[in-house]
């Protein structure tokens, strides 16, 4: 179900969806709600409802924008800036960045192939199309004894950040062991 709530937390309306959604992102610039459908492996969008009467109509009409059915790319996380949209495939350790315009042009791709101990799990996109990707230590690939020695405690995978240039080159690697989530505001970066 997709539910809409007022900013005060009161329920406005809800619409049933016949497929799962992994991520949903509101985009006021393009007037769209971007959604990631893991079952059909595609990215689609709804028009953004602007009042109560539009909710049912808007959330029943889906437009498929990117279809990865025949590709070895199964994104599970979607991130956005004002002009771009990024897709992260944690299983295959791949990242793709697209423009948000009508053509949805592929800007860059990145594959985390050098270090199998870390998996791509999240990110934020800057307005100049640099990306800060979050990597989480893959517990399965490390022997548990090694991890205990390195980390000191058991169920807490380490995290780190990679800054990517707009053409997908690694620029910096930042240690961020306890980073849980992050968001980019107009003037701030929160972690």
């Amino acid at each position: 179900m997709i539910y809409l709530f007022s900013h005060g937390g009161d329920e406005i309306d809800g619409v049933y969806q016949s497929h799962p959604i992994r991520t949903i992102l509101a985009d006021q610039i393009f007037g769209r709600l971007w959604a990631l459908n893991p079952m059909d492996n595609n990215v689609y969008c709804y028009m953004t409802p602007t009042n109560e009467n539009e909710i049912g109509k808007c959330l029943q009409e889906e437009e498929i924008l990117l279809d990865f059915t025949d590709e070895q790319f199964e994104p599970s996380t979607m991130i956005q800036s004002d002009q771009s949209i990024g897709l992260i495939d944690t299983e295959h350790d791949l990242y793709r960045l697209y423009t948000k315009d009508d053509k949805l042009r592929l800007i860059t791709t990145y594959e985390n192939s050098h270090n199998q101990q870390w998996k791509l799990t999240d990110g934020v996109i800057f307005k100049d199309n640099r990306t800060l990707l979050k990597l989480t230590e893959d517990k399965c690939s490390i022997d548990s004894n090694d991890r205990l020695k390195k980390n000191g405690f058991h169920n807490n995978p380490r995290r780190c950040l990679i800054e990517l240039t707009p053409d997908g080159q690694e620029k910096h690697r930042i240690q961020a062991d306890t980073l849980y989530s992050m968001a980019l505001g107009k003037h701030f970066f929160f972690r």
Partner: protein
Amino acid sequence: MADDYGQISVYSLPKSKSYIKPSIIGTGELFPKNSRLLLESFTVYEFAIVAYVRRFEQRSNEIEHSKLIKAGLPIMKGEQVCFYIFNLSLNYFFCFFSRVVVMIMVV
């Protein structure tokens, strides 16, 4: 900010570059914690907070099916739920049937 169970906190952010920290506007819950619902994803825009919510059962159903899809078994749209319910009913039937047989044997 929200957790998986729909507990939310709404903050306002300072508009200009400064060292002022975000201030909390309020906290609340989108649905009761014991409702077996999970907040899978949420997003905020001018008009509303949009939340995609699923039941625990739907999530395990999807995980089960993604394994089948990866194994190359085709599942038609619309069959997903029926297939699962059929599987469950079959399991319950065999469970019930075996209990009856055991009871008869005991008697």
